[in-house]
């Protein structure tokens, strides 16, 4: 069922909450040592999918295969995965160290090994000075980092992170990225979701986009961009604008779309090297002075919006 280099394979997951079909034949896979980014609007079913993967919820139908014949829901499976829940799940009235030691023990790590591991992880998430602090006294970003650390103690083969960077400052965000990259370096796989598309683009080896409980797009960020959003956007601002500019330009070159908002013009089109030349020439021929030109390369965010804009057609 599962490939040599695959760690996890999810096939046709279906899950409904009474009338509400949240997962609708969801399938994807994660390779060993791969970072898989999951994108999807609120309510797409990401957390539900994670709950099924962490055996908190059972699916109505579908299959989850884990490498090595490990059966989901078993102790062995739970030791093979690390779950970072979307909500902080730590004991407020225990210190960072106490929390980590307690959770480590649940995974069967004990004695000297536990102390060493806890210290190592605390260093890794950059919280050495907060080791003896109560969780309730930490900032939101620090709590997030401990929340992640708690899931890594037992060195799981697969780490599942539900919005690990929500509500943290840019520095903490970078720290968390580092943690994720470190995991990959050590050969562990990661699935994570985030509403920061730039972060998904930056970190992921592969991305899946989920909408209404189904995977609507899958591939590396580059592949997705070139497949769904190859248009560059040229944003021109004029001192004074004339409608003829659009007509003239459309006649000369192959434009996908053009948008006018006051003195601002957005031109959507494939990349070509001499496009700027055409734009400047056209403006000059109409005696229009350009105030500013902005060129926007398409990125994953555009792909995300592309799928969101498509509305119910998907």
């Amino acid at each position, binding site marked *: 069922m599962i490939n040599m280099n695959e760690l996890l394979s999810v096939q046709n997951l279906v899950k409904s909450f009474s009338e509400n079909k949240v997962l609708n034949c969801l399938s994807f896979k994660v390779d060993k040592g791969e970072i898989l980014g999951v994108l999807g609007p609120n309510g797409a079913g990401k957390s539900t999918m994670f709950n099924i993967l*962490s055996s*908190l919820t059972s699916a109505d139908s579908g299959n989850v295969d884990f490498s090595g014949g490990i059966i989901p829901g078993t*102790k062995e499976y739970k030791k093979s995965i690390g779950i970072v829940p979307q909500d902080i*799940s730590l004991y407020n009235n225990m210190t960072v160290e106490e929390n980590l030691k307690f959770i480590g*023990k*649940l995974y069967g790590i004990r004695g000297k090994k536990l102390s060493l591991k806890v210290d190592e992880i605390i260093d890794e998430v950059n919280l050495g000075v907060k080791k003896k602090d109560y969780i309730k006294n930490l900032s939101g970003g620090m709590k997030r980092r401990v929340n992640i650390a708690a899931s890594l103690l037992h060195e799981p083969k697969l780490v599942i992170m539900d919005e690990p960077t929500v509500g943290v400052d840019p520095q903490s965000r970078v720290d968390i990225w580092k943690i994720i990259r470190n995991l990959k370096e050590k050969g562990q796989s990661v699935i994570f979701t985030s509403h920061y598309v730039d972060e998904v683009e930056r970190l992921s080896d592969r991305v899946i986009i989920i909408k209404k409980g189904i995977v609507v797009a899958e591939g590396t960020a580059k592949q997705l961009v070139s497949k769904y959003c190859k248009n560059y956007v040229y944003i021109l601002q004029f001192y004074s604008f004339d409608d003829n500019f659009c007509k003239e330009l459309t006649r000369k070159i192959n434009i996908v779309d053009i948008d006018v908002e006051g003195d601002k013009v957005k031109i959507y089109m494939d990349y070509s090297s001499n496009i700027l030349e055409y734009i400047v020439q056209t403006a000059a021929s109409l005696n229009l002075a350009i105030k500013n030109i902005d060129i926007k390369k398409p990125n994953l965010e555009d792909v995300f919006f592309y799928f969101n804009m498509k509305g119910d057609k998907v």
Partner: protein
Amino acid sequence: MTFFTLLGKEFANLRKNIGVILILFLVPLFIIFIMGYAFADDETQYSLGIINNDKDSILAQEIVKNLDDVKALEVYGFDTTKGAELAVEEGKILGYIDIPQNFEKNEEYGQAQINFVVDNTYPIKTSALKSIVEGYLEKYNEKTTAVHTAVNVGMKVNSDCKPDKLVTLATDYLSSRDNDVIEVVTKYTQTNQYQVMSSFNQTTCGMTAMFILFLCILWGSGNFLEERLEGTMTRLLVSPAGFGTIFTAKLFYIGFLAFMQFVTFFSIGHFFLNVPIGNSGLLILLNLIFIAAAAAIGLLISLIAKTRIMSIGLSFFIIMIFSPLGGLWFPLSTVPEILVNIARVLPSGAYMLAIEKIIIKQQSFFDILPNIIVIIIYFIVAWLASAVIGIKRKRTV
């Protein structure tokens, strides 16, 4: 191993909550004492019968007169022991003293005996009367009182004698003897078949039960719910610990604390307030079953409640039904039969009825079996309902 890890976490957190321990252990003790005294009979006079068979004895007359003067006693004279016995049975007097013939004569040889018979149906009253009468008669054995009595007696025999001289004579006479002058022989009768629950028995048992309910239902459900609402339950459930171990550890923790409450309250009740224990094996069994049922109800509430307020509300509602109707606040012997029948089908009422059978009536396992079955039914129903909700939850986390 995981079980002890989970248990260790609970106790470590408890250590940080000294206030909770105080509330769970000191408040009930406080209430046991307060209510014990408040409900102790406020009778200021205890009725005592006296049969004086040594009518000519001046010492006997002296004793009768002086007992009559004791404010706390209401003394009735009887001619025969039979008459006094009848009065006890009819509840007119609580006990009687019987001064035998030749009392004074024997007194001279240091062998005087007074029989004291007291009804043991009402332990509190009994002990009050007993301490008054025995304490009073004991005084005759104290030298100064004895001398005083001797002087009084002497003056009545020979009113011409000078008091100084009498004192010397009496002192010499008394110091030549080494026995007690008067020996009180106390006997208990029982007009009812069983003792009634004394107020300290009642409050010790009642408050133990109520605070077991508080701990297991109110505090227990809060503890479970906290774990769920704080999101840490997710952490436990995704770990290899396993559903069963997580819940067993929690129930064990709550159960252990509740058991400690039981041990504390009953020890103090027994050693300081004379609460009888009866068959301690049965008493422990009953409490363990009661604790298990209460903890299961707490678990159920934590699963039903969606918010802390709701769990507190539900817990209070249940405790406030179980406590008065189960006879935890006042003895079931004082309520109408219909209420006793309601108490029979409540776990708290079953507990109180069973505990009376154990500590007062000294009955056997088979006598309390019906009550135990009632409590076990609550345990099973609460567990099953929790399991059903838990499994359903898993489908809709």
